[in-house]
């Protein structure tokens, strides 16, 4: 039960309290660029959620078996090659290169797969897929997972990593859809000329960030509620 509570807390924290866009500022480029209409914004959000889950899962595997300090695979190679078994290997210096490689190739594979097996899905968010490679949010999720893989005694499991990715993706979808809704209304408003475009979008994002700051501290209440509920 404790794990379930932990997972729910990770999810709420990633989606609402520390929203990827409005708290960590990752994924601002699509947040400003693809938020003119609600349906495209929602499509982009879904594509990001999809890719972020897949690439975080793959990156969790790479991290846990190869990259983290004391990972099993390099240790095995080291022992087989006759190295001193006491040495602790740490390949995390390679993590950025491996992560971006995994992300780029998984985006490519997802695009090919979706185009082949689900044309309607490809039609709805396929156009966004190439854009996603340079989306900070995807890399950021993997980096957050890496942060929790440093201490061999307290590693994140795959469900935890996946929950963080899903929460982040859903939080991104929420933020970008809200933004697109506001911007559709803004088209009808008389915005001062220099502020039109990105300026007013950023100010709206600022107000949204202020609203999302209201979620600070929610995790405590959720935790107490969940523990009393699940006991």
């Amino acid at each position: 039960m404790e794990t379930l509570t932990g997972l729910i807390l990770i999810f709420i924290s990633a989606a609402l309290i520390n929203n990827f866009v409005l708290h960590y500022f990752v994924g601002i480029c699509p947040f400003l660029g693809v938020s003119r209409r609600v349906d495209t914004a929602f499509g982009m959000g879904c594509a990001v959620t999809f890719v972020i889950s897949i690439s975080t899962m793959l990156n969790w595997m790479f991290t846990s078996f190869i990259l983290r300090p004391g990972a099993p695979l390099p240790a095995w190679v080291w022992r087989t090659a006759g190295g001193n078994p006491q040495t602790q290997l740490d390949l995390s210096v390679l993590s950025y290169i491996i992560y971006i490689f995994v992300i780029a190739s998984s985006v490519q594979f997802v695009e090919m797969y979706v185009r082949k097996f689900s044309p309607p899905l490809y039609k709805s968010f396929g156009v966004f897929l190439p854009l996603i490679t340079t989306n900070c949010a995807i890399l950021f999720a993997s980096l957050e997972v890496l942060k929790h893989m440093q201490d061999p005694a307290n590693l994140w499991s795959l469900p935890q990593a996946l929950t963080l990715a899903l929460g982040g993706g859903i939080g991104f979808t929420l933020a970008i859809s809200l933004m697109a809704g506001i911007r559709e209304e803004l088209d009808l408003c008389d915005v001062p000329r220099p502020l039109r475009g990105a300026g007013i979008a950023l100010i709206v994002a600022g107000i949204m960030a202020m609203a999302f700051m209201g979620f600070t501290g929610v995790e405590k209440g959720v935790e107490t509620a969940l523990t009393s509920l699940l006991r």
Partner: protein
Amino acid sequence: MDKEGPTALERFINGVLPENPIYRQLLGMCPTLAVTNAMKPAVTMAAATAFVLICSNIMVSLIRRLLKPHLRILVFTLTIATFVTIADRFLAAYVYDMSKQLGPYVPLIIVNCLIISRAEICASKQGLAVATADGIGMSLGFGLGLASIATVRELLGSGTWFGIHVLPAGWPNWGIMALPPGAFVTLGLLLAVVEWGTRRRAATGIWRTVRMLWSWRHSPASSSSS
């Protein structure tokens, strides 16, 4: 032969102001908003980005004849990732506290659209000198952008600049400026100011505006009415 394109000097000047990465092209928004709560992290970030941008421009320009069209983005990204790893290890070794404070934003330089767009637009098409000049110009422009936002946020948020107290002691610190909403609103307003400035300069010429204001201040009509 290289394709015709802007010269090194044009590239350099373009990067600083006319095509400023932050205010004109809206590229690299993630570090722009995230690390500008004070001058020190902003300057460190600008330096790290400059290192990566210049090195990757040089490297991409050197290998531009070997690039295959369908693999080029991957090659760019891996080149950038290599240099980012170097920058990250360097920061962690020599300015550990700053590296801790910047946290995930140093590795996130990899996905900074600015660097990949310069590789695509300039370095993969033009020679070494032009690519280097472009890298330096763009880095300067990016640094100026970061510094301007950080100046506003640090001054209003804590009354300091590079940690030195500038505003009088009674200044009420605007806590919100150091938090995410302050970042969004500051950048939005600065964008509007830049947009307004260029528009006016295009319309009348900024010096004419200044002279007009000056003459109005000193004209007998305004002094007699006041």
